[in-house]
């Protein structure tokens, strides 16, 4: 199998190439300058100065177009450089599941929701559509195929779109873990595990805030993280959340979560803290001279950068104050 034959040294060129690309990523300083720029046009000009393609018009649609092309360029680059071509897939799995959600939901609503599909996953939208139409899931892995069947069944019985999302989310993380295992990359596996822990933290806080019962929480929690699910089940008070995550890297995020439960902080503060923890974990790849880590770090950094640009531009378009935008910006990779 490929994973046994690939060594760190196979990544020498790729790592060097990616490290040279890292410096083109937007720094926090630049993002802050963008959010403080006088006009939106000035902010977009700053983007242009950082090597971004020109954005035709200052609208969200034009910006989204550029964001999508930046994303696909970065993935294509990493795919072409990586010895194992499956490397970027971990980041693409979420698009497959997003497309699946759209297609399964539109099966029930009967509406054509093709505009909501994102053609960036491992499977093209057309492939997914055909598979769903013909019920042939042989090209998919077991997680995905099973989750589709379960989701269809649950949706037919309950008409509850939330359950469909929960089933597919669980399958998505199982897929990611499997992919990380298949690639044999510890760094990637730990990243996925940290992601699962952070999602579990966020959904526990959110479900508690919604006043949902234990049943839904048990159904929603994603297995596979470092924090055992059983520790989050029960009467979860803000203190318990803090305790459970006390030794985890997510301790700060758990504190924000506890504050959100007490009504002292907003949910976006929890999201922000979780994302920062994940990015700080990824940052460790910057000190690894060669190997798969810089490539993975770079991909995550590109995704984080796209979110940051979207945050700034959306904020500017909505007329938010610069400090409101900057306080919502996540940590940056560089």
């Amino acid at each position, binding site marked *: 199998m490929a994973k046994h034959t690939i060594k760190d040294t196979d990544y020498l060129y790729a790592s060097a190439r990616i490290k040279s690309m890292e410096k083109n990523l937007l720094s926090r300083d630049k993002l802050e300058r963008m959010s403080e720029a006088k006009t939106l046009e000035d902010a977009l000009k700053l983007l242009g100065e950082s090597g971004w393609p020109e954005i035709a018009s200052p609208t969200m649609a034009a910006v989204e177009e550029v964001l999508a092309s930046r994303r696909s360029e970065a993935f294509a680059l990493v795919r072409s450089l990586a010895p194992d071509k499956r490397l970027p897939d971990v980041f693409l799995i979420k698009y497959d599941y997003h497309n699946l959600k759209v297609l399964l939901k539109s099966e029930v609503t009967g509406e054509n929701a093709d505009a909501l599909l994102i053609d960036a996953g491992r499977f093209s939208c057309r492939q997914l559509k055909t598979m769903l139409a013909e019920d042939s899931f042989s090209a998919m892995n077991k997680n995905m195929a099973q989750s589709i069947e379960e989701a269809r069944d649950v949706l037919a019985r309950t008409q509850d*779109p939330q359950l469909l999302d929960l089933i597919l989310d669980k399958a998505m993380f199982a897929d990611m873990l499997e992919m990380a295992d298949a690639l044999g990359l510890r760094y990637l596996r730990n990243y996925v595990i940290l992601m699962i822990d952070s999602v579990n933290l966020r959904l526990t806080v959110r479900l508690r805030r919604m006043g949902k019962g234990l049943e839904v929480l048990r159904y929603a929690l994603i297995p596979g993280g470092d924090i055992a699910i059983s520790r989050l089940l029960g009467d979860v008070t803000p203190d318990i959340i803090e305790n459970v995550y006390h030794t985890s890297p997510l301790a700060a995020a758990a504190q924000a979560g506890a504050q959100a439960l007490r009504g002292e902080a907003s949910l976006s503060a929890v999201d922000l803290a979780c994302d920062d923890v994940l990015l700080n974990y990824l940052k460790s790849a910057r000190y690894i001279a060669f190997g798969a880590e810089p490539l993975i770090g770079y991909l995550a950094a590109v995704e984080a950068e796209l*979110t940051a640009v979207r945050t700034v531009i959306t904020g500017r378009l909505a007329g938010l104050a610069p400090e409101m935008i900057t306080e919502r910006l996540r940590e940056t990779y560089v």
Partner: protein
Amino acid sequence: MARLNVNPTRMEQTRLKRRLATAKRGHKLLKDKRDELMRQFLEIVRHNLQLRKKVEGALSKAHRSFTIASAVMSPEMLEEALMYPKQSVALELSTKNIMSVNVPVYQFKMKSDDPAEIFPYGFATTSGELDDAVLALSQTLQDMLELAQSEKTAQMLAQEIEKTRRRVNALEYVMIPQLVETIKYIRMKLEENERGNTSRLMKVKDMMLEEQRQKNIRQDQEAYEAHCLNFEPKQ
């Protein structure tokens, strides 16, 4: 003021007098209706203003949360999260009668009574801010519906007030003066006829007296002449 084109007869005058009485009574009633409508209208408008401020505040809060959620989620994922609603609402429409204006009354019923049933999405790929946005919108629904009801009521009452005001004005400044004028005209016309009649009678009386006098003179003359013939000396 123009008067109505009617025959100046006593019958017409009686008819018009009856119409004037009705018009005056109608005017008073409509004026009362207008005042009451106005009172209710002002009450509703005041309530409306408060409600609108509340709804607008809540909506801007929801909008802000949506903006923040859309900043960290791609637009496709945001729409996907909301494309299939979990909660549904049945709206019942009935009407209420305010001063003979049928204003709408909305009542809605959620499919599920669980207030947490409004979130139709999973949590792995959605932002927490979306929860706040959806919650803010769902909490505003009741107020929004009440606002719609109260704004429609205010609008319908305003139309009714305008209509009533026009009627009151038409009665007050056109109909009633016209009737008064016409009645006055008929009265004067009748009085004039009366006077004409009297003078004609007086004239006839004079003529008749004169005729009588002439007749008396003639008779006297004839009597005198006859007497004189009787006493003529015989030759």
